[in-house]
């Protein structure tokens, strides 16, 4: 079982790194990281914060875009090109196919994030000439960004298992935007009564919560990130991604391939 998942994941990774969109987005993200050095010239007192905020935001947003653009085609393109039949006629279970696809894209995103992170730390070193102790929290912020990618990838995979690439892109991006407002949704639930309150509360728990995974602003001010937050964010992201992959596998399991 592990070998089959690994094989699908490796092929997904290989296919993803051949995609030109990926390189365009990485280059654009690195350009944005570099531009933070130039932007620092036209502002006062926040040169370091600007490099951190712009750099980590670029890694996060471009990673999410890569996750969406590649994730939406993971299943639907295989069906469209009929390559899925070649895979499924072998002794591969459908859920293994989905899990393999997830790990393949997750691996691609980790490698991309690592490349962008090298560019980011290079820009920071160029500005500050040395690293400081609190920069370790920047790694925590990047780790949280990776957890965010995991959730977005699983959302894209879920939609890709039953919808067209364009609709999957729209749905996944919408979920990302709504997930960024999850704190507001909770605030809204607190202000309402009756069924609206129940609905808003249910939605705020069902939709992914990206607010807790975004610590960019606080690490830019050298504020530490609590160990318990790292632990619970990891558990949350793993649980949420696993739930969505299970849902995607369930849908794919019962999907007619005729």
């Amino acid at each position, binding site marked *: 079982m592990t070998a089959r998942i690994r094989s699908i994941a490796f092929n997904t990774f290989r296919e993803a790194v051949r995609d030109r969109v990926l390189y365009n987005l990485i280059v654009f993200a690195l350009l944005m990281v570099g531009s933070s050095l130039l932007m620092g010239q036209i502002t006062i007192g*926040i040169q370091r*914060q600007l490099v951190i905020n712009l750099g980590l935001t670029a890694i996060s947003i471009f990673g999410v875009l890569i996750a969406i653009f590649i994730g939406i085609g993971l299943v639907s393109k295989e069906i469209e090109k009929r390559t899925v039949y070649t895979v499924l006629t072998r002794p591969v279970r459908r859920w293994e196919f989905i899990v393999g696809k997830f790990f393949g894209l997750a691996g691609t995103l980790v490698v991309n994030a690592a490349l962008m992170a090298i560019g980011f730390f290079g820009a920071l070193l160029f500005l500050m000439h040395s690293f400081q102790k609190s920069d370790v929290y920047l790694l925590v912020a990047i780790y949280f960004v990776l957890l965010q990618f995991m959730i977005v990838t699983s959302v894209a995979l879920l939609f890709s298992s039953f919808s067209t690439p364009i609709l999957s892109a729209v749905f996944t991006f919408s979920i990302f935007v709504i997930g960024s407002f999850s704190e507001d949704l909770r605030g809204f639930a607190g202000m309402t009564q009756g069924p609206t309150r129940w609905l808003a509360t249910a939605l705020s728990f069902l939709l992914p919560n990206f607010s807790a995974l*975004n610590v960019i602003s606080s690490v830019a001010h050298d504020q530490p990130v609590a160990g318990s937050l790292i632990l619970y964010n990891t558990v949350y992201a793993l649980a949420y991604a696993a739930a969505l992959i299970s849902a995607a596998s369930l849908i794919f399991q019962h999907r007619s391939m005729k």
Partner: protein
Amino acid sequence: MTPHRQWRTTTTLVVLLSACTAAAVVTLRVIDRIRASSPTPEVLYVPSATAARRLSLGYTGLAADLYWTRAVQYFGRKHHENAGKYPLLYSLLDITTSLDPHLLPAYSYGAAFLASAPPNGAGMADKAVQLVERGIQANPNDWHLYYDLGFVQAMELKDYVAAARSFEQGSKLPNAHPFLKILAASMAQHGGDVETARIMWQTTLDSTDDPSLRYNAYKHLQALQVDQDVPQLEALIQRYRENTGRLPASLGDLVVAGWLRGIPLDPAGHPYRLLSDGKVVVQDPKELPFIKQGLPPDYQPTIKTLP
């Protein structure tokens, strides 16, 4: 395709490319002129901090940095234009600090931008106090903000009691600059005198690494020196007049009379000049922005730019 034909096509395309590029540049220059004659109205685009927060999709740190950069650019442009009015400044600072309540430079510089009297600032000292007080609420352990608050209260509002209270509160915080205690005491006893102002600017100079803040403090210290030198020299000239019945022809006369050891130099390194009416002025007031004394009578003060 024959080589000749291929060459002709290439030449045509190169000519077309050059002509179109030239046309685009010329057109853009015309567009620039049209736009310059009808200036774009000043608008905030996103006037509410809540809306800006939502539009930032949770990336509030970056949004705050962008708003702060916009505030700096806005202030710089208005300052350069010698506009005197900065209608959007407080809103930009308000949105910046709502997006990121820990962005300390936005409070410190923002208060300086707001508090200074025109043409050097917006002349909105009350708003500056409001901004820094919000900063203290969000960052209660940062002594710099208490210093900024006391500074605005003393230098712009001349409220020395409030300034003493702010310095006192700041001095109790961990890592507070030791001068805060001295400032608190000095403000309570001698608020408004030159020596207290000197301590304040010296504290600013000593407590920051920022080149523009250091330059600003240094120039203020120079101005305080001139504001002390000129009345003293003019008092000597009056005494000379009372003793001799005439004004000295130059400051050299005071040296010859043994009242001065040499021709005194202003902080920019130029000798002070004596005018025929007995007034003492500096040679190049542009080098000494912020001076209140020693300005040549025909001098038109311009904006005092930071480097």
